[in-house]
């Protein structure tokens, strides 16, 4: 559960989060938007389907991977919201086309 520090932010950016439309401030990250909206989880793990939320917010832990505008495995903590952005929870591993390559 998170809230804005300043009250004078405008909720001027429309995003679709997990199928529902929301208005959020501009200049915040997708991961921050998820917390602000009160999302219960942003992904489910490929191994046991456990629910997860972001951990580090600085791009190193990859806990915040989401499907953004149709592309999977995006670090939601490094991506700013944009008008009309379609954000989906990532369930399990994502398809090969958009998958990460493992050495």
């Amino acid at each position, binding site marked *: *559960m*998170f*809230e*804005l*520090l*300043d009250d004078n*932010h405008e909720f001027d950016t429309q995003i679709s989060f997990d199928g529902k439309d929301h208005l959020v*401030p501009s*200049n*915040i*990250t997708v991961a*921050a938007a998820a*917390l*602000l909206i009160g999302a*219960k*989880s942003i992904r489910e*793990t490929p*191994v*046991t389907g*456990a*629910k*997860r*939320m*972001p*951990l*580090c*917010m*600085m*791009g*190193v*832990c*990859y*806990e915040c*991977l989401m499907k953004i505008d149709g592309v999977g*495995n995006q670090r939601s*903590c*490094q991506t*700013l919201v944009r008008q009309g952005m379609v954000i989906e929870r990532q369930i399990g591993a994502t398809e*090969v*086309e*958009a*998958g*990460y*390559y*493992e*050495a």
Partner: protein
Amino acid sequence: MKPSYELLIIGAGPAGMSAACEAARNGVEVCVIDDQPEPGGQIYRNASRATAKQNQVLGKDYQQGKNLVDDFKSYGGEYYANVSVWHLDASNQVGVIKAEENYFISAKNLVIASGAQERAMPIRGWQLPGVMYAGAGQILLKGSGIVPRGELVLAGTGPLLLLLASQYLHAGVKIKAILDTTPKGRIVKSLDKLFSGVQGYEYLIKGASLLHHIKAAKVPYYKHVEGLCAVGLDRVNNVSFASATKAGRKVVNISLDVDTLLLHQGIIPNTRLARAAQCETTWDAQQSCWTVATNEYGLCRQNTYVVGDGARVMGAVASRIQGRLCGLHVAESLSKVDSHNWQVLHHDLLKKLRKENAIRPFLNAVYQPADAYLIPQQGDVIVCRCEEVTLSDIQDAVRLGCQGPNQVKSYTRCGMGPCQGTQCSNTLSHIVAKQTDMPMAEVGELRVRSPLSPITLGQIADL
């Protein structure tokens, strides 16, 4: 983006920005790349765009970043945000992804200024939604201007935890409790290091004033916390631990309802890029992490530098100074600085750097994480969050004869997920070291391999 530069800098934090400004001022052709949307790095995240309220809450150290970020924005060289490095090697060839396109850059001189990351804190339940790093809480405050609401508990050790608590209090955020995991007797044991640290007395004053602020706000403060666990099914509801409620009282088990639990065990250098570039790392028992072997200019070998917290944790001010030193050194090596200027300036910077670093041995000794928070205390605790590998899985692999972290990785998949071991590598090495009774330096750590960040098959095919 050009195919080659006289100087390529990875990271636009205090160290990278300072190196860029100094080198460009002396006529070096510079390019800076960073994976964040804005320059500033960790401490000065969003510094040039922060609101009045953010500045007031975040305090003076943060506000000092604005000048540097503003200077950097007009420093005269190139800067690319949102760029991730996926390949790096010993010949200073850098593979990057920018706007989903793949580029190779050849760096005549390479500066890695990748900063620090939080040390993992693998307690039971740390993977539950509602549990985050304290640094993450601060990043949300700086970058997105949001703060936790509801029952908030901060747990761990280190200056950043206290700083965040104080910043939250300034923001009017209610803190239900602070659980301090610093083991008993640390300050007394570290006093011998204080003598050399007197030059850094400002840091001691800052620390004392943070504690004073927290105390004055009457936030319940539990000391020498042991056995910390996050409890819940699909999210954390509760935190349990053992602590004495007052000095001299008996240790009791305590459980608190919680909506958000922020964990912190200090920060460690993010050495992945340095290791990919085949810079040497050594185990630093004092900081309890791997540090990069460099000289005071950040030089690892000819034409390759690692500076700031990415080499060893030194703080923002020292990172700025070392960044400048490094930028100057690069310019000097390209014969762009006259020898008088070089002599005067680099001596002055070296002196400042040594003064800044004087307090470190004391801070390292006080805030060295307790063993119980480096190695999980129960077999079912998740070590590798990506692949959900537990302490028992790793111990079984070692018992069956796995010879070190890299073999454990192949056997258990620990460290094989998208984060590529950034969260579990050190824990894994600690577990192996303890079970085989070998020193960390000998156990080593997970190897770093390209791609350093996830890359799609399509992007590989484009090469």
